[in-house]
């Protein structure tokens, strides 16, 4: 149970909070021209 709770918490909740930070974006394989 703690595994499922952990995955949901860290991937979804922490992931959403982190996504609002101004991190550099991943560089796509073929950047748009």
């Amino acid at each position, binding site marked *: 149970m703690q595994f499922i709770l952990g995955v949901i918490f860290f*991937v*979804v909740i*922490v992931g959403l909070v982190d996504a609002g930070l101004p991190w550099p974006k*991943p560089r796509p*394989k073929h950047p748009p021209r």
Partner: protein
Amino acid sequence: MIAGHFGFAALVKARERQAPLWALMLATVWLDVVFVPLFLAGIETIEFVPGTHGGYGAGIIHADYTHSLLGAVLISALFGIAFGVAWGRRTGVVLALVSFSHWLLDLIVHRHDMPLLPGHAAAQLPKLGLAVWQWPWAAAGMELGLLVLGAWFYWQAARAVSVSAGVGTRRAGLAGALILAGGLVVLALDVSGIAG
């Protein structure tokens, strides 16, 4: 081990800032995510250590597909390739390595139950694991160390990017605090066995 893996992913995020944290968090437990349906199907199993009723570190895990060396390499490579197509080679490689880090960290704690190859091919080969789970507090201390280090370095990096972008540092603090607090809760649940 659960919380320690999340701590390691946070540590990697501090260094590989272009890799989205949610993907690093998923990568770090990807072998266990794949393990779940195989466990439910009875293909991979957990056996209690004789003389125990299970609980933290008291399992011998028969996960010949997801936690064999070859299986872990293949599953991690596929994970990295899937994300690398969208996010580029570097991020794909980072995610594959974080996924494989799960096997390396598990190697420290598992009780000689990690095969080199999946299936019957592994029968004649030794199974690996340094069995730190024999000393649960040492294993829990290692997880705690990874968690604190990960939350600390993540927070430092998140704060730095926020300052350089000219935005407030409140969200960085919140994210760092969530990693630490969430990890402590998961570790406490894991060690105590309260949540099953």
